[in-house]
């Protein structure tokens, strides 16, 4: 019942005219940037962070709620209309949605994705409102060793368990951890990995890393292989509205997608890819029109889109309740909190309830705004998609460098942006996942300080890590999740030799 009162209180915060305006700006900016091809929600949040530097925390965090959901929605519009998913979570949407657009059913595809996102977002945000306080109650009992173990789980699941190759995922994670070492050690004041450069004493800025990897890296990658394929923008033809038949075929996939998306997103299992593909294959199996799959089946858009949005709300559960980001986008949201010195977790729920619940309530409002705004404005978003590629990427890079200088006016920071850009390009070319780098940078230092705190409380006894039942369980999970993909790979090698 407490959650109801808290949520009602959050709503009174969220419907203040100024906050409504912030949510609206966030939704519009988020969609506008998210719709640009090649820009996923993580980069959308990273690019828009500097805009909120000088705003007050309450307002700008509400704006982030809008940017987060808006960026997600913008990404699916791009996936449907030009078949370039900005992130792997939109891949399933692109599969069927782009075929629908090609067949002149782009309108219903956009509609089912918008309404499905709304349905899933609303249910999942309700789930967040009730699950987060429960998790907070649990988290209050967590000691530093338990937090450390929890982060180990997140490290492993984000990088090794659910990627294509555990070695490549772990490589990305350790590069992130190495970057996290840079700067002054908080406990002893000694500088590590700074090589005498004073600008490095503060450590590597998360936004610089994310913008370099995602924006500059993507621009380099797309430019280097522009001769291979041109993108084709499908015009939206015919009616925007869904027929009665479309509704009938959509509502069940929405619900099922939500049921896949929210729990998997809420577990520290990294990203929305698994639920979207689970939803896609489920719909393919359950549909009455299996012949349409691969040629534009509406279920194949409705389900994965709902799963994608539900898992986006789901990742906010560990983020808000534990301060644990499990996707690149969540890591950027955490960076957004940190720029105001706010650390999500049980303490934030206790100290700044109006902020946390204002954010959660704003998610409902942002979701409703997206539903009302997006279908009427779809013409505008399509026009954004038609920006010539040279100007688009030139604009993205200008904005990226602007954000970097605004955050830290130094040439060193810009050089780092360039270096991370080249790194992002190489990682794309050699197929290393990018999210683990960002998660490693942001969680590495936190995990280190929790471990050191735990060990100094126990007077240096490392057994404290297995004496706490919570920590012992979590470390066991992390170990299993680390070993499992290697074991499975060994098994599949036998299979591969058979055929």
């Amino acid at each position: 019942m407490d959650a109801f009162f808290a949520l009602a209180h959050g709503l009174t915060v969220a419907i203040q005219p100024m906050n409504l305006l912030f949510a609206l700006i966030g939704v519009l900016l988020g969609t506008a940037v998210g719709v640009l091809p090649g820009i996923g929600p993580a980069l959308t949040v990273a690019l828009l962070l500097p805009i909120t530097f000088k705003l007050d925390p309450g307002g700008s965090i509400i704006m982030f709620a809008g940017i987060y959901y808006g960026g997600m929605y913008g990404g699916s519009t791009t996936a449907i209309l030009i078949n370039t998913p900005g992130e792997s979570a939109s891949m399933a949407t692109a599969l069927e949605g782009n075929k629908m657009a090609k067949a002149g059913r782009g309108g219903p595809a956009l509609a089912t994705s918008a309404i499905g996102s709304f349905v899933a977002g609303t249910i999942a945000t309700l789930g967040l409102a009730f699950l987060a306080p429960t998790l907070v109650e649990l988290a209050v009992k967590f000691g530093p060793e338990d937090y450390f173990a929890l982060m180990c789980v997140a490290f492993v699941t984000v990088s090794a368990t659910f990627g294509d190759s555990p070695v490549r995922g772990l490589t990305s994670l350790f590069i992130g951890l190495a970057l996290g070492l840079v700067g002054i050690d908080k406990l002893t004041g000694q500088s590590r990995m700074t090589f005498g450069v004073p600008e490095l004493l503060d450590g590597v800025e998360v936004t610089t890393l994310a913008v370099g990897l995602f924006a500059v890296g993507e621009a380099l990658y797309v430019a280097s292989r522009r001769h291979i394929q041109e993108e084709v923008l499908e015009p939206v033809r015919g009616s925007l509205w869904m027929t009665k038949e479309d509704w009938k075929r959509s509502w069940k996939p929405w619900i099922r997608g939500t049921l896949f998306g929210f729990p998997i997103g809420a577990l520290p299992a990294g990203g929305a890819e698994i639920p979207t593909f689970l939803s896609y294959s489920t719909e393919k199996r359950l549909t009455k029109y299996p012949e349409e799959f691969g040629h534009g089946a509406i279920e194949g858009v409705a389900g994965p889109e709902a799963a994608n949005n539900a898992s986006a709300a789901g990742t906010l559960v560990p983020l808000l309740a534990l301060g644990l980001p499990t996707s690149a986008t969540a890591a950027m949201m955490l960076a957004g909190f940190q720029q105001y010195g706010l650390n999500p977790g049980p303490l934030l729920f206790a100290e700044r309830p109006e902020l946390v619940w204002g954010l959660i309530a704003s998610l409902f409002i942002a979701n409703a705004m997206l539903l009302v705004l997006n279908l009427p404005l779809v013409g505008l978003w399509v026009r954004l998609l038609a920006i010539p590629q040279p100007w688009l990427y030139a604009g993205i890079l200008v904005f990226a460098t602007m954000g970097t200088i605004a955050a830290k006016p130094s040439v060193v920071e810009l050089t780092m942006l360039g270096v991370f850009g080249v790194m992002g390009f190489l990682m794309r070319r050699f197929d290393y996942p990018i999210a683990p780098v960002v998660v490693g940078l942001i969680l590495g230092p936190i995990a280190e300080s929790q471990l050191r705190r735990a060990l100094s409380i126990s007077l240096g006894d490392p057994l404290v890590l297995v004496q706490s039942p919570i920590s012992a369980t979590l470390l066991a999970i992390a170990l299993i999740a680390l070993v499992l993909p290697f074991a499975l790979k060994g098994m599949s090698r036998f299979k591969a030799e058979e055929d």
Partner: protein
Amino acid sequence: MTTRTPKRVDVAGLVIAAGLLILAGLIWRDMTSLQLSSVYGVGPKAMPIVVAIGLAILAIGNAFMAVRGGLPSRESLRWMPITLIIGGLAGLIALIQFGGGFIPATAVLFVATSAAFGRRAFLVDLIIGLVAGLVIYLLFSKLLTLSLPMGPLERLI
């Protein structure tokens, strides 16, 4: 599925592995210069040691993949656009370093990037870049009071 050619050593993969090993070595060398503090538990050296060892193991893993041909196949790429974009970034950094200001630096990056994507209308793009720089500058330094690098052009505004 990626098509792989088995039993062909991937040179690029070996270079990546070597790079990881170098990074591990750098971290290790940096770690040895730290002083151990006398507090209980682990000091500032523990994490660098873990990361360096982890990277060294992963370097071996990556080298193993490269030797066995486990890297994905790659398409041909053009170096010209990459050079242009990195050149544009370098130009921007140089202009800011030597007091050229935000707006011209932005214009240089804009022209270089759009040339990298195949446009040849340099003058038009230069003007667009200058206008974009001006708009961003006004928006962010006047409206949001963020400090952006100043040059002769910015001081006039």
